[in-house]
């Protein structure tokens, strides 16, 4: 498999064998070397073989080895000829990130930081199998699945303005709870308002550097001010939805005699009953995730006010934006010079709509969509803005995070004998966690340098750097 460098930020694998389109990778000379060592590129080539794929199978600079689709992958499909793939969305449907800005300064929070992180850790349900304070009847759960963020706001978790600052207004309209399996409903019923485990977190940070002043102003981000960043998704409900549809689609493909290069790429025609049903169930899981993040951010706001003994007015916490980075969506893009409705799969990739895009709310119309890129817990996170290049090249998509570089086993080896929490504390970062291997598996060394990742998407014109955030305190599952 030959990898050709096209320019400073782009590499390509030419269409060959069963590939229907080429594969294109956004990267840098140093990061591409790591990618070559894994099965990542083969996974991208497998995606390029799926029916109805348009233009190219795309890899963002944070790409790494997933299962089926690589993580950091983008693929758009023709609505008539193409497929929808649960594996192309991922298990954690609408895993995503939400950022809130505040009027607090670092100087005001620093003396109370330890109390604050402890209060957040006590109040936010996190870790394996955690259940939330929100207990729902089957009827209410189905309402949440149908309307997402709106359900949360109508039940007292947050404000109307939060909805406009959420991708798709926090609701995928085709959600149909009758498409969700009983097992998925069972698995999700007590998990609304929980952070979960793995790489999910809640982070108190500070605006450390501004790269684009007008965009930062539009996003309400001020140098030296405190931010709250949240990363979580649809919990067990999303996982079970993905798993149940993977199983049924794999069986269907076998009966129909359709071969796929990897069973994890099991898929169905977008317009088939099975494809349509998955989309309606996936939309429910996406809405569950938005309601979940809406509740968690509301809870974080309550904790901040209590722990710091301040009024809502002094805190002035407001949602900057909420993005999802595991999703399939119908959007209009230009293919071979013509506007076309396509189904974009973003697995570990974020929407990156540029200034003027009709999907953006009035406040962000001039500067583009806010894009939230969490780094590892010891370094930095970034806020980017959507740029025109994404509509020309990547079906309106960009990267989603730092991307793992060490396996969990390798990370544990590297962490052996070290006090990671002490190392972070020495850098001024307080961490609280539940899982006994969480700290080692999620250590900063396990991830690529997020700055290198965002430099590639900035340099290649698919999004623009706006702000860098520095972590102060992190709660992990």
């Amino acid at each position: 498999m030959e990898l050709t460098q096209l320019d400073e930020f782009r590499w390509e694998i030419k269409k060959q064998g069963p590939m229907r389109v080429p594969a294109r990778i956004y990267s840098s000379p140093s990061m591409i070397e790591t990618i070559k060592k894994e099965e990542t590129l083969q996974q991208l080539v497998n995606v390029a073989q799926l029916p109805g794929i348009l233009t190219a199978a795309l890899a963002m600079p944070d790409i790494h080895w997933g299962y089926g689709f690589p993580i950091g992958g983008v693929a758009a499909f023709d609505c008539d000829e193409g497929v929808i793939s649960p594996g192309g969305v991922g298990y954690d449907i609408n895993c995503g990130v939400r950022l809130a800005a505040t009027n607090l300064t670092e100087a005001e929070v620093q003396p109370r930081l330890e109390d604050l992180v402890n209060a957040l850790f006590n109040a936010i349900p996190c870790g394996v199998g955690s259940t939330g304070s929100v207990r729902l009847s089957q009827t209410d759960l189905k309402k949440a699945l149908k309307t997402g963020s709106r359900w949360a706001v109508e039940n007292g978790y947050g404000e109307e303005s939060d909805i406009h600052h959420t991708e798709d207004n926090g609701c995928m309209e085709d959600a149909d709870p009758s498409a969700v399996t009983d097992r998925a409903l069972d698995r999700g019923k007590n998990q609304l308002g929980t952070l979960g485990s793995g790489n999910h977190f809640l982070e108190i940070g500070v605006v450390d550097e501004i790269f684009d002043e007008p965009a930062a102003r539009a996003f309400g981000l001020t140098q030296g001010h405190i931010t709250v960043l949240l990363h979580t998704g649809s919990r067990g409900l999303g996982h079970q939805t993905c798993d149940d549809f993977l199983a049924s689609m794999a069986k269907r493909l076998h009966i129909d005699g359709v071969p796929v290069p990897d069973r994890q790429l099991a898929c169905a025609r977008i317009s088939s009953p099975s494809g349509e049903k998955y989309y309606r169930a996936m939309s429910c899981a996406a809405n569950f995730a938005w309601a979940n993040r809406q509740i968690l951010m509301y809870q974080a706001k309550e904790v901040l006010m209590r722990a710091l003994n301040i009024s809502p007015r002094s805190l002035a916490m407001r949602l900057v934006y909420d993005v999802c980075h595991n999703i399939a969506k119908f959007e209009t893009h230009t293919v071979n010079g013509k506007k076309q409705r396509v189904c974009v799969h973003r697995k570990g990739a974020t929407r990156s709509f540029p200034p003027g895009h009709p999907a953006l709310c009035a406040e962000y119309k001039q500067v583009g969509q806010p894009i939230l890129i969490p780094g590892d817990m010891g370094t930095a996170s970034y806020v980017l803005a959507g740029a025109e290049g994404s509509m020309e090249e990547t079906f309106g998509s960009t990267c989603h995070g730092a991307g793992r570089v060490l396996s969990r086993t390798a990370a544990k080896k590297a962490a052996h004998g070290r006090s990671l929490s002490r190392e972070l504390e020495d850098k001024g970062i307080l961490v609280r966690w539940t899982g006994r291997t969480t700290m080692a598996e999620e250590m900063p060394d396990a991830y690529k340098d997020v700055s290198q990742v965002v430099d590639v998407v900035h340099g290649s014109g698919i999004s623009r750097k706006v702000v860098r955030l520095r972590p102060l305190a992190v709660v992990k599952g």
Partner: protein
Amino acid sequence: MPYTLIDHTADIGICVTGETLTDLFAEAGRAMFDQITDAAKLSASHSREIEITGIDRPDLLVNFLRELLCFWTIDACLVKNVRIRYINDARLTADIHFDEFVPETHEILKDIKAVTYHGISVNETDAGWEAMIIFDV
């Protein structure tokens, strides 16, 4: 331990062996729960019979482990032992011995969230049988 861990950047995998297909499947179930919790703390106070179908051996193994994982993810139960009663390439029946999860007694070592098809293999070797499975964690 008749299984080994496979390195995967984002997740974990296991390589399991068994003299017979029956041994292999039972061991795969035990190995998955060995990652989740310490089986020595389990007493297998309950049991349930399950029946699983699949389109071939790898699919049967994934479906079997999926069903076992639901004991944990949906019913909050931890599996100690598995006895395969009957198995062919497309169907099995098994007795699952398990306990209800008690947070004060059982430590959760790792959260396995799903059993993936990615890289799944079930092969006959000179020594018996070998399977590879990657989990989403």
